[in-house]
């Protein structure tokens, strides 16, 4: 296999060109065109920004969008806060077999489908569910308690879904921290907190950024968790896209929504990459 040239090169690149062309570039060109099409008469479309105007004119749409963005940022922050101590424990405290086991245990729940995990939370949280039954048994509640179908349930489900994608890059980043640096910090009189803030967290920054980017992206684009755990109060932007595309068959409007979501998600990914100064490839590999 010397460096391929000519026909050989063309054949080698052909699958990638077909994949990227037919499944990535042209489909996105198609929704870009659709998103700036306005229906002027039955089956007749003309160029116009009406779909984007509609987004700003209808409070339900832009509020759902803003809500999705804000809750996704909250979910990302909570996921980071919950995962960091555990990653610290796995990477810096646990040793040998215990360490591999704890790391593996973090991965296992994510080999199972998102739908299964969400089903578990539904059985735990709903009015006739496990937590409600336990609270009544303990005498802490006098009747059934509905814990499902509110923002708390949605955030809980999304944080749970994001944990793996945060723990893995954090553990990878923290693993490479030289223990003598931490010791030196202590020897120089640094408290636990100072060492954490001045040495450990800066070292883990690439992992923090990689994890946050992936968790934000997956959260913003999630569909099943907010719909199933939030019910009518879920109000996630992907649901609006689904409604326009599948329920109302208004593809131009749905495409405009899709583009707005893509813009939000790409903006955050881009900002994260700028912040960390890392290329996309290395950031994505951090999680693998």
């Amino acid at each position: 296999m010397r460096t391929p040239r000519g026909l050989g090169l063309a054949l080698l690149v052909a699958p990638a060109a077909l994949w990227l062309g037919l499944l990535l570039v042209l489909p996105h060109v198609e929704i870009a065109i659709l998103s700036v099409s306005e229906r002027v008469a039955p089956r007749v479309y003309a160029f116009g920004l009406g779909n984007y105007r509609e987004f700003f004119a209808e409070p339900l749409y832009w509020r759902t969008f803003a809500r999705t963005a804000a809750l996704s940022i909250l979910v990302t922050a909570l996921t980071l806060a919950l995962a960091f101590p555990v990653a610290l424990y796995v990477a810096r405290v646990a040793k040998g077999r215990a360490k591999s086991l704890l790391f593996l245990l973090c991965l296992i729940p994510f080999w199972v489908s998102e739908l299964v995990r969400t089903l578990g939370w539904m059985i735990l949280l709903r009015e006739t569910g496990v937590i409600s039954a336990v609270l009544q048994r303990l005498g802490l509640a006098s009747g059934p308690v509905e814990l499902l179908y509110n923002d708390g349930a949605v955030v809980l489900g999304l944080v749970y879904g994001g944990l793996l994608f945060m723990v893995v890059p954090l553990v990878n980043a923290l693993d490479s921290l030289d223990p003598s640096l931490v010791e030196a910090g202590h020897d120089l009189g640094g408290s636990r907190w100072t060492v954490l803030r001045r040495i450990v967290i800066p070292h883990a920054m690439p992992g923090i950024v990689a994890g946050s980017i992936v968790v934000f992206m997956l959260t913003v684009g999630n569909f099943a968790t907010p719909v199933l755990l939030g019910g009518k109060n879920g109000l996630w932007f992907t649901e609006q896209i689904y409604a326009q595309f599948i329920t109302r068959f208004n593809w131009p409007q749905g495409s405009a929504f899709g583009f707005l979501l893509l813009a939000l998600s790409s903006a955050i990914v881009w900002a994260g990459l700028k912040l960390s100064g890392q290329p996309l490839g290395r950031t994505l590999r951090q999680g693998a």
Partner: protein
Amino acid sequence: MTRPTLAFRLYVAAFYLFLFAPLATVAVFAFNASPFPAPPWRGFTLEWFVGTGAVFGRPGVLRDGAMLASIGNSLKVALPVAALAVALGTVNAFVLERAAFPGKRLIAMMMLWPLVIPGVILGISILAFFSRVANGLEAWLDRDLDFLRPGLGLVVLGQLSFILSLSTLIIAARLRRFDRALEEAAFDLGASRLRAFRTVTLPYLRPAMVGAGLVALLMSFENFNTTLMLVGSEPPLPVYMYGQMREGATPAVNAVSVLVMVAAGGLASLFALIVRPR
């Protein structure tokens, strides 16, 4: 940081409890002799796996035609996706690691894009584009082209759009560590290009190819977001489960979840056995 405080240890323990609580709950209620997946515990049963429906009015998973059909649909999607992901991913790995041509950097970067595009958007964009292609071709050829309409074929393409990124990365990572002197040795010993590839390079790549195939199977089997947008009248398992869960699922959904957990656990162990020891 070698002496963790008690609070730290308790936190880590609570975290793992939190991690496994929903899965344990799903599993436990698959065996509860009750028409609903809810407490109280009414005794152990396998009715939700093998029952005929005589006891609770709904059959167990293994006798539920619609549920079995949805598992079949998932396999009809996952097997071609995995096969294509491995075959095309291997070719892509050679593009990334061996080829040199203008625009390669752009291609290499674009191969990562599907991983940062929300699945719902991959789904709607492929749906819209292939509908336009189908409309155009049908008018031109004057015949129906159902495989370009929502259905399992389109689901395969939709899932492939991002799973191919993963398989390409996995296989390319291994190809990068390949010592090309081994190929040179094969050439020096008189092997043709094809023979050197078949007897030296391919066996070296095999663990990564198997690993990529298993990851692709798992990702395909569990994919929901992209699949939901492209599905026709034959729902794969996650879409079918979603429909059931919206209506208020019976423990049959728990039972199928247990089967999925066992299968995913098996695949993952296989992956760990084959890919991890390098």
